[in-house]
């Protein structure tokens, strides 16, 4: 019975560690993909003036799950299958804070609304902003992802030792 309890406690600590570590990884992956998407959209608009639906359809599958799911939701919004409000409520970005989520959705909900020059200008600004955020989340991931995982493993081991 005691052994089962110890294994459960250790597993719980490990799970919390993995979840926190995954949170940082998902943020890193999302912002890296977002920056890449903004860059490729800038190129597509500037050279071929491809429509947004075509751009998203073409690149969607080359991204990681986090961003791919978000793009799927964006695609639904573009094709009129969901409303702007439903798009804003989409749960694919639950690893971002409310303000971060609001900013990303705000960028996507106005994407394509402007003439080429203004659109390029806005994407350029967004690109710079999200590059900075990307640098920060990469650093955070490096700092905290492994750290929290190790910390909770150590915590789990400590619990096991204490209870033994």
């Amino acid at each position: 019975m005691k052994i089962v309890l110890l294994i459960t406690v250790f597993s719980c600590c490990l799970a919390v560690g993995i979840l926190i570590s995954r949170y940082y990884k998902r943020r890193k992956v999302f912002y890296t993909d977002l920056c890449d998407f903004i860059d490729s959209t800038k190129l597509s608009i500037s050279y071929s003036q491809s429509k947004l639906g075509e751009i998203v359809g073409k690149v969607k599958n080359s991204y990681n799950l986090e961003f791919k799911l978000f793009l799927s939701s964006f695609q639904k919004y573009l094709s009129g299958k969901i409303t702007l409000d439903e798009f804003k409520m989409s749960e694919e970005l639950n690893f971002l804070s409310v303000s971060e989520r609001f900013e990303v959705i705000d960028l996507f909900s106005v994407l394509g609304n402007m003439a080429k020059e203004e659109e390029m200008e806005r994407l350029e600004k967004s690109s710079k902003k999200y590059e900075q955020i990307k640098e920060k989340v990469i650093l955070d991931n490096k700092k905290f992802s492994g750290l929290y995982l190790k910390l909770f493993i150590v915590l789990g081991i400590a619990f096991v030792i204490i209870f033994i």
Partner: protein
Amino acid sequence: MFEELFPFDFLRIIGKTPVDKINEIRLRLNKKIVICIGNKSYFLSSEGLTGNIEKAMSADKPLIDEIFKRACENSVYAFSNEIRNGFITTKGGIRIGLSGEGVYDKNELRTLKNINSLTIRIPREVKGCSANVLPYLFDGRFLNTLIISPPGCGKTTFIRDIVYTLSQKNYCYNVLIVDERFEIANCFNGVSTLDVGNFADILSGTNKDYAFENGIRSLRPDIIVTDEICNKQDYNAVLNASNSGVNIIASIHASNLEDLKYKLDFEPVLKNKVFSRFVVLSSRDGPGTIEGIYDEGMRCISY
């Protein structure tokens, strides 16, 4: 037809009208929505068509913006040229005329902003509408033909049907359709969404100057078909093409033959007798009413 263009609530209301008969929907900011069926106009109410202005719905800014955005497939930047020219053509050939505020950059119109009215025109295939006229357009060979009418009288439908009927009758003319505004064949991803028969090459979205010159060189057409010639460049393109041994079917905005004589820069086309047949259309008994067919001397040969 309207599923991708209209937001759900508006689509539901439009669904209460005889959708397949609508020619035009006019949305003006904060004004009553007008729907044209044949040559009659009605207001749109939440219950469908109405003649009562009190019950009529108005077009608000979010509705106009949403339809404009959908017409641009959420990619306004990809429609810069069309917006500059004052219209967008959507999938299915629906043409949306725009009005708003011009934005200039170094004396050049860059775009329209604050769009405040949309004129949505729905193309109709009326197969056989040119059948009565077609015999007059031959004299051993096909004759250069100009279709004349005010806006909204079925010129484009008429021209499209001529091309279709020529194909149906197995006249193996190589027809080059110069579809500057995507209205005649409405190509989407290169595929014509309106029936123009089996012998047509379609140059969409290019100006007439380019299309006439390069089309004649590279596609060897027997007949060039184009819509709405309206300025000196277009007239010159027609003039040059007629001197290249290619036949032409074109359309122009005018109420009658008299109006043509007063059109600025059109004189050389008349003087050189480029066109041998003039077909005047009106909407007197509905769009496509044939008012008269005239020969090169502008004598009426049928009406």
